[in-house]
């Protein structure tokens, strides 16, 4: 039972940390995609969507090669003393990368739904771009952003393929709910697997319900 609680808390912590890690950049990128025209925008959009359409194991392999000692970032990581591959940090990074598309896409839609006219009027009332962003754009996009955060969190929580590739299965160190379920089934310990499954399903169900509620409230607000 202790192991189950540990796996659950570890998974929640990793998913939360992964989501937090991509939150500022994801929101900023969502805003840039929604509001600005810039060179290479289509390329960045495609790149951001890749983890959504590529096999997670393939994304994991890219991360493994990128962060491994002999990878392009290896010497730098070694220089700063950061050992990432096959540690809990790799689990966080895998979760974060897999959650990026959901966060950025939801942020983009949330910002697109804020009428630009309101931002323009705020400018004529003496507010600079930052004040407009924090007092008009962000509050009006907040429900959509929150829904995006919840979905990104749920995606991070359910991550399996990339995590297995870049973090492996190290009991007490890198085992998440998904990895735990797989491992228990492999060992034929179905009861324990079903317990982890029930926890996983409950958390995912709660996250989707929460995001639906947020989006529904946003639709009602927009419809007046």
């Amino acid at each position, binding site marked *: 039972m202790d192991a189950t609680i540990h796996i659950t808390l570890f998974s929640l912590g990793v998913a939360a940390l992964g989501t937090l890690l991509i939150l500022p950049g994801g929101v900023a990128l969502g805003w840039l995609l929604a509001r600005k025209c810039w060179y290479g925008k289509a390329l960045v959009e495609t790149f951001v969507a890749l983890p959504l359409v590529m096999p997670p194991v393939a994304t994991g392999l890219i991360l493994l090669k990128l962060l491994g000692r002999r990878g392009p970032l290896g010497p730098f990581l070694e220089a700063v003393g950061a050992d990432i591959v096959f540690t809990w940090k790799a689990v966080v990074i895998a979760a974060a990368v897999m959650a990026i598309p959901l966060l950025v896409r939801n942020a983009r839609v949330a910002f697109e739904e804020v*009428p630009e*006219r*309101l931002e*323009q*009027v*705020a*400018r*004529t*009332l*003496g*507010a*600079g771009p930052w004040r407009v962003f924090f*007092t*008009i754009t962000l*509050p*009006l996009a907040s429900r959509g952003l929150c829904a995006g955060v919840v979905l990104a969190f749920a995606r991070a929580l359910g991550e399996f393929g990339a995590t297995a590739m870049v973090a492996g299965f190290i009991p007490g160190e890198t085992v998440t709910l998904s990895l735990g379920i797989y491992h228990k089934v492999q060992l034929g310990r179905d009861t324990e697997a079903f317990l982890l499954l029930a926890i996983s399903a409950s958390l995912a169900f709660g996250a989707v319900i929460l995001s639906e509620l947020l989006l529904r409230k946003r639709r009602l*607000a927009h419809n*007046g």
Partner: protein
Amino acid sequence: MKLNLSSLHWHASAFSLKLSIELEGRAIGLFGNSGAGKTTLIELIAGLRRPDAGAISLDQTVLSNTADGRFVPPELREVGYVPQDGALFPHLNVYANLVYGVGRCSRRNGVESTRTGKIPITLESIIERLDIAALLQRQVTHLSGGERQRVSLARALLASPRLLLLDEPLSSLDADHKDAVFPLLQRIRDDFGVPLVYVSHAPEDFFALCDRVAVLSEGRCLAAGAPAEIFAARPSIGYRLAANRFNAPE
């Protein structure tokens, strides 16, 4: 107030605006049918669009001049803007909308107001004159069309603008609401002494409000003058545009 638009040029894919006008008065009208370029011109004056070429100046202040790259951003122009739908911030109540821009324009630049109004612009005076005391704690989504426009006008005034741009503020209102809001525009012009640029495609509005009217069509200025000159004489261009719009007999 003297508004000078010199060799102004702006274009998008299917539309181009090209004009030079100098207009002077307490209230200036912009008249034209849909697609004439009225809103584009308003947005250029407000600083919400950058002109491709030309200069815009208000009294002695150059707001934009492509020749020397000068472009005053909208938050520093001290030019208020009331769009057709009022554009109230839906997540704030009426009071929070009103105080959003209080005193910001004049504080930011340290410029003394050149207004000649009898009544100073204060929260209390605006609330009283625009009759919005009963609305202060209401959510803006629960306001009627007329109430929304009154709050939008009040909010724009409270930022102490040197000039107020009104983009068809009455067009979405029914006759009763229009009759209630229109006198407020005269009050803003006279009591508070804020010069107006008023956009409409209803000629009768200009007689009651504006000293000068510019007639726009397809991004060009066809004529400018007093409302009587523009609309009264049958062969006038303003009359012809209005007649065409309302199918009046030539």
